[in-house]
């Protein structure tokens, strides 16, 4: 489970990221490369350290358990972010690094530099703009589901051995109807981003290790989870 968020830089993006994680109860540490940001962050009462961009970053390995840390590279300049990403990756092979990029092009560069995820700012914003024009309802529902703390949630369950669903065909599963939830898709944990959506109607057999993506209310999800893992009754 993730415990610590390391954010590099303290611009408006970094501020929002920090704010959101603190709200969710995570511990956030900031690394900044200029005096002004350092004072700002200090004034806002945050854990902050002033560093040089060409630091060797050894302190991170000393202070944190790398499996429980996510790094956000949110410096102002794409080139700086690339440099930071490469430096971190050179030092720590397994560190989870997310970088902010201006556009899709720089996002690709950041991924080449070793970022696990790169978020293109322009594209993300543009997509939201277009979606709010064309599909306002979908956007609202998605935002509730993904980001806001509402009763309705998205959840994923790994199918374990002897699960009630193992061996069943995806489109034939009836179980969820009992619990008022919707099965959206089945993902293969091995192959990232490969999904079979239940609406596709393929004959996908649920196997051990598959990840079930479901949507429902918190209570219902809990009951459903207990059921498929065989804990209840």
């Amino acid at each position, binding site marked *: 489970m993730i415990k610590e968020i390391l954010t590099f830089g303290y611009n408006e993006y970094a501020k929002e990221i920090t704010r959101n994680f603190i709200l969710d109860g995570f511990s956030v540490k900031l690394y900044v490369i200029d005096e002004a940001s350092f004072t700002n962050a200090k004034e806002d009462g945050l854990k902050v350290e002033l560093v040089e961009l060409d630091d060797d970053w050894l302190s991170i390995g000393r202070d944190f358990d790398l499996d429980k840390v996510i790094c956000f590279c949110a410096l102002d300049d794409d080139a700086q972010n690339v440099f930071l990403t490469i430096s971190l990756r050179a030092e720590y092979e397994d560190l989870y690094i997310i970088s902010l990029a201006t556009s899709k092009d720089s996002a690709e560069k950041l991924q080449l530099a070793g970022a696990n995820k790169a978020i293109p700012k322009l594209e993300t914003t543009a997509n939201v*703009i277009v979606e709010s*024009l064309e599909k306002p*309802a979908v956007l609202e529902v998605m935002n509730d589901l993904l980001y806001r703390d509402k009763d309705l949630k998205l959840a994923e369950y790994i199918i374990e051995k002897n699960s009630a669903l193992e061996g069943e065909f995806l489109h034939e599963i009836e179980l969820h109807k009992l619990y008022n939830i919707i099965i959206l898709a089945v993902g293969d944990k091995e192959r990232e981003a490969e999904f079979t959506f239940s609406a596709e109607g393929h004959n996908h057999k649920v196997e051990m290790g598959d990840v079930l993506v479901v949507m429902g209310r918190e209570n219902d999800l809990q009951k459903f989870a207990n059921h498929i893992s065989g804990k209840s009754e």
Partner: protein
Amino acid sequence: MSFISKRFVDLSYLLQSSKDYQGTKRFFYSLLEDQSYPYKKYFDYFMMLLILSSVMLLIRGVKYPLHEYAIAYNDYVISIIFMLEYLLRLWVYSSASKEIISQYEKDELLNKKFKLSKTVSKVLKKKWDYISSPFAIIDLLAIMPFFHELRILRLFILFRAFKIFRYTRSLQQFAQVLASKKFEFFTLMVFTSVMISVSAVLIYVAEANNENSAINTIFEAFYWAFVTLSTVGYGDFVPVTDLGRTVAMLIIISGVAVIAFTTSIVVSAFTEQLDGIKEQKVISDISKMKHFYLICGYSSVAEIVTKRLLKDDQPFVILEKDSTRMMEAVKARLPVIMADPAKQESYENYGIDLNTQVISVLCLEDTDVQTIYTALTVRSINPKIEILSYLHEGKNRKKLSLAGVNKIVYPQELIGVVSKEFTGKPVAFDAIHLLRSQSSNIVMEEILINERILSAKKCVKDLAINMSKLILLGIYNNESFHFNPGDDVSLVEGDSLVVIGLDIVIEEYSLNLHKVFV
């Protein structure tokens, strides 16, 4: 006031106040002269067809005798239609009754005596302005074949070909562009005529008495000079004397210069006018669009937004006041106008109707200051229209909403929220992103429930979702979301069904929903 004058004034008032008369006149005016009138183009096509058929008959008639119906068609039917057109144009060009009334009222006010003859001459002068315009002369000549007893008048049919100019705007623009270089063409023509005259006279002097030379008359000399100067040089007349050949050499050199000069005038005329022509084109394109999104400012976000809109076949128009930015949009072949979105004139000048044409306004400008100014301008024209804005600095959020922005997109906030997703459920998020990115065939869509659907489907059960291979996530209405609704939940107008499925399945399902069986 004499009896006749009084009758005229009475009649003028009658016509001016008659709805039928004015309506008819307006209709014909739109049909003949108003480019924005939607049915004008059909009239233009029809006239062009008549012209084409007439010219084809002329060509056919050169070698083969025409059937008497064809002759009657060409001489009477077409001519009468053209004559009617001519008269109608003359009629709608100016209003005689209006002229009479205004003169009458002016005289009444000044306590002067109303003089009919003076007013009539004014009216006639106006009409004469029309009759003497180049287009009207061509029109008149095109009717001439009607009186076809005169053999020579048959050639006037060719004037019908010139009439094509009237009905095609691109040809008119071509003529206008060339007309902008009147002075240059005039200079060139003077130079050319002097060159031709001088060399024609010289060649005549040198060659006319020479037995070996074919050039014997002054007409032949002029003909030779013209053919040589144009660098065409048929070679049917060739100078044989030394003097003649010297003249030929001089005239060839000046000929090359004339051609080069002409070409450069035409080219420069076009480059100068090109922007104007393109702008005209954009304006007329916009007036034809029924609905579109108005994007203010071609910033880097706007660039991506337009790409997405283009992909989704959504119409839009960009307003950008900066010329380099505008050129970028032009290069990307986007419909863009160079205008300041914060100025009211921009909308008036380019015929953008914020009340009927524009679906939403997107303020994607570089600073919040510009955005607020634009939003206020738009609000002042239409208090209800939806405005979506990009927010640059968080502290300006309130100012933007005060300026009347309905939806604010603040990228910093978006990114902050999006970043949360990486801590929890990565697979679930990937699945949702795949749905949203529209890179696969599986998409999430919304179907709006309208009156038409409601007439046959009353509740969720009627939607027959189970049979459709779609997943109904829920029903969204007024910011509340009914997740996974049961069969007995009833539908109301304004509900949006949020469904997941293959894009083609959703499309077909939506079509079927709208089908109403009677």
